[in-house]
């Protein structure tokens, strides 16, 4: 067990290291000189050189990568002498646009992204599992086919099309919801809720569709299992057979996928946040792309990768807790 955890953590660190390297290489090799960008219009070659030296981009690749990694874990110092700027760990550099520390920018926007992700996750998990169960129970009947149609639609509608349509119908035409406007929860809970409602729905619909199909398939498959027949042969009531012998095996795999999907969402609902003007990490990433603000793009990429990799590991560990076959090695 301890070895298993150690193995997983080690694997995670390797993946994270590769992600860092990969990201760094791409930005190092492909991107235009950041010094030129920072320097702006009235620039002299000397000024560019000075900025290069400050950023450290005049040094060889491995040195830069080393400094970058060190910055992540221990912080780093930009420039020398009186102009030196201390960037505390985990240092992701400074935005070319606003000169803010990328780490601070992320931390500021994390609550919004987390709110979006949590709300959407609750919605899609509830809708997906409920829809899947209903479909499985009514297999082949009208309800099943109706839900199948809904899931296909939900899976196919691009979320920005859905976002714009919802906004047009609910806000502009019907006026059921006010125009989205950033309001803290403490000030006006109702408006806060109304603001997040559409993003939640938009993000949840596609996922709910996928989860519905998954739940349905798993439940139907599990009901064919021999141990379900055994349970019935024992004279257990249908409710007990369902609860104990069908649901647990059918829903366990969903936990795995949920962990990863949730982690993925936390690191950037770029489109949804942009369309609804929510000031989260996704919108920050989208904005930094249009402005070619590399340190921010890189920071968000690393954060997203980190979340997905960690989410993966948490799920793996969680799995050992809920599936006895993984927990205790086979002694047969």
């Amino acid at each position, binding site marked *: 067990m301890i070895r298993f955890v150690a193995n997983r953590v080690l694997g995670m660190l390797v993946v994270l290291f590769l992600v860092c390297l990969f990201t760094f290489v791409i930005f190092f090799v492909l991107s235009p000189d950041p010094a030129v960008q920072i320097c702006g219009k009235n620039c002299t070659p000397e000024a560019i050189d000075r900025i290069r030296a400050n950023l450290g981009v005049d040094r060889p690749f491995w040195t830069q990568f080393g400094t970058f990694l060190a910055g992540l874990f221990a912080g780093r110092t930009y420039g020398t002498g009186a102009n030196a700027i201390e960037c505390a760990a985990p240092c992701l550099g400074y935005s070319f646009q606003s000169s803010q520390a990328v780490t601070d920018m992320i931390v500021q926007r994390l609550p919004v992204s987390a709110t979006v992700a949590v709300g959407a996750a609750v919605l899609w998990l509830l809708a997906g599992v409920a829809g899947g169960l209903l479909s499985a129970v009514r297999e082949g009947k009208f309800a099943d086919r109706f839900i199948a149609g809904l899931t296909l639609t939900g899976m196919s509608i691009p979320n920005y099309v859905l976002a714009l349509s919802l906004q047009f119908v609910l806000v502009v035409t019907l006026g059921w919801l006010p125009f989205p406007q950033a309001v803290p929860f403490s000030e006006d809970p109702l408006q806060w809720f109304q603001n997040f409602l559409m993003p939640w729905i938009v993000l949840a619909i596609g996922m709910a569709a996928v989860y519905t199909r998954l739940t349905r398939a798993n439940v139907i498959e599990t009901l064919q299992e*021999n141990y379900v*027949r055994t349970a019935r*042969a*024992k*004279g257990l009531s249908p409710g007990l057979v369902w609860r104990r012998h069908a649901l647990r*095996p059918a829903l366990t795999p969903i936990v795995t996928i949920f962990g990863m999907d949730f982690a993925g969402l936390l690191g950037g609902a770029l489109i949804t946040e942009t369309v609804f003007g929510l000031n989260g990490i996704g919108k920050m990433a989208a904005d930094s792309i249009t402005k070619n603000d590399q340190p921010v793009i890189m920071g968000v990429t690393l954060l997203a990768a980190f979340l997905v990799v960690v989410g993966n590991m948490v799920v793996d560990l969680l799995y050992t807790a809920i599936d*006895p076959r993984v927990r205790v090695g086979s002694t*047969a």
Partner: protein
Amino acid sequence: MTDTLLRVRGLTVSFPSANGPGEVVKTLDFDLARGGALGIVGESGSGKSMTSLAIMGLLPKGAERTGSIEFDGAELTALPERAMRSYRGDRIAMIFQDPLSSLNPYYTVGTQIAEAYRSHRSGVTRRQARAVAIEAMERVHIADAARRVDHYPHQFSGGMRQRVMIAMTLSMEPELIIADEPTTALDVTVQAQILDLLAEIRADTGAGLILITHDLAVVSEVADHIVVMRDGDLVEQGTAERIFTDPQAPYTRMLLDAVPRIDDEIGLLRTLTEEAR
């Protein structure tokens, strides 16, 4: 109280399809005496497993069952599902072919053994249920039952899993045990042990036994009465002795021809294991 535990008359199982009903069991008749052991023999597709599921009322969706199944004087085919449930597991228990897939990988064997007990008896505490499970495991000779009760199915070997399945039926002291190919998935050595165990249980509890198999050698070990089936039809039935010494149907003779070799092997193994003791 009659002498007949189970009386089956005109049992037919069919799957209605576009080309008319496909009958997998055709007007089957047989009796099982209280405490008796009946072997139902036939190749796969002969309808023997459908017969056992029909008795349990566990036929797959879409299957139709007609005829009469009388258990201890009660007509099972007339019972509503809820009443049938009180028979299942409590008075009629069933053992399946593949013990691994028949056990739920998510629960300990103890939980699964005690499950029937807890659902048929009201007010059973966790501790009592556990004690019942341990006792049942001891009766099927699982060593170190008090510790093994908390293990999961995948931690047991094939033969041990089948013992767990048998223990599962024992906790309720059923009057009838139906074993559907209980040894097919097991090694030959283990097969003999499981058959011995079934015989022992029967002697101990006085429960009736229906043993369903494709292998005449297996029934020869246990059954006192044999039903031979083919393609859903009853080929012939009679006492085990008569079937083995004086088979009437050519099909039975054909099945018997395949036996001696295996029979010898089991006999040999038996001698060897006995010598080893």
